[in-house]
């Protein structure tokens, strides 16, 4: 289920609140669009709020990394809100917690 994706700009940061699991082409596409919305508005620090996500698979992780690489190419930063549960465990397993700083 792709759920709702909401974006918000606060200062120089863009926030994406992911409202459902990141485990399908549909959810990946929704994330891409939300990210592009912020990126096209010039935001180079983007924070992903994954607190509403229970399941993330390699498809969703791939999309997260795509966002990371696009920002990095322009000296930007992709951050995450503090992770929890299975998503936290998955990020640690794949060492993504060392790649994406936490926005407290």
């Amino acid at each position, binding site marked *: *289920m792709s*759920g709702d994706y909401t974006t918000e700009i606060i200062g120089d940061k863009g926030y994406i609140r992911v*409202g459902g699991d990141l*485990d399908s*082409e549909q959810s990946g596409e929704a994330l*891409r669009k939300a990210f*592009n919305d912020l990126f096209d508005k010039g935001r180079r620090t983007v924070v992903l709020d994954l607190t*509403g996500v*229970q*399941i993330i*698979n*390699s*498809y969703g*992780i*791939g*999309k997260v*990394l*795509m966002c*990371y*690489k696009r920002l*990095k190419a322009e000296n930007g930063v992709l951050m995450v809100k503090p992770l929890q*549960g*299975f998503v936290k465990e*998955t990020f640690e*397993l*794949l*060492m*993504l917690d*060392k*790649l994406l700083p936490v926005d407290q």
Partner: protein
Amino acid sequence: MTSKPLPPPPPVRPSTPRVLLADDDQGTRELVGACVARAGWHLEATSAGRALVDKLHQEPFDVVVADLLMPGMDGLSLLKQIRAKRPGQAVILISKSGTIGDFVAFMKEGVLDVLQKPVDSDTLQRTVTRVLSSVRDRERALSIYRFATKEISEFSFSTADIAECRMPLSLLDRLVGAGILEVQSRLKLELAFQEALANAVEHGNLELKSPWKEEFDQEGIDRFSLVKRERLADNSYARRRIVVTISFDGLMLSIAIRDEGKGFVPHKRVVSDPNAERPHGRGLAIIYAAVDEVRYSESGTEIEMIKRLPG
């Protein structure tokens, strides 16, 4: 031949039904409380979704009765959190007229019934009684699974069919219900299965290449997604079969997936390099983290994932 010792039984529920209520409206809490007291059930009540989830972490309840709209957490998020902790939890929603929205989505998350406010006490009692009865029947059916010694299921799909739908692993639900498999292990196995199935569909039958995920057109759409769409519409790819075989022998759970592609050699697990930024190749790490052993056929067209269960 030595007999396998029985796994420990699932926790025995007390005979008095236990109801957990979450509603931020005091009037509703009082009404439900009075109804439950008349029926002789045990009730615990909270006024927030977060407190309800925390309570479920501490102890089980037969039925959860929850207001759909409470401050701080929308109904669907609440249901997902309930299901993550208690996959088979029976839930009754209370909603104001006209706010039920996507009823199908709620049913998929385990909601067994919806009551509209203002709640009628007779209707509430009948609904909770009916739900309690079905909960008991289900538990009796699941508990027998502790004595299961062998089960084999085989499914065969076309690539087009399986590419667009989610295949549930109902055996995992039965194993969790019988206390044989932990909830967290179930989640990991489900993910591992999805990863392996996606590999069989995308890299096996559709012959898609991972580097295509980093090639974009002018609209920002990656080549992998574009070619996938094209090949799903091409019968020479779309009709290739995927066969899923799930077997359980009391000590071991095996999930095998076979495709009709040209076969591919799996890459090494991506776990050692945190700076590996490529957006593909991590599915195998998820698979290996979920199971005890992974086997591949010589042709590279079949993967078997094995999880050993407590004996």
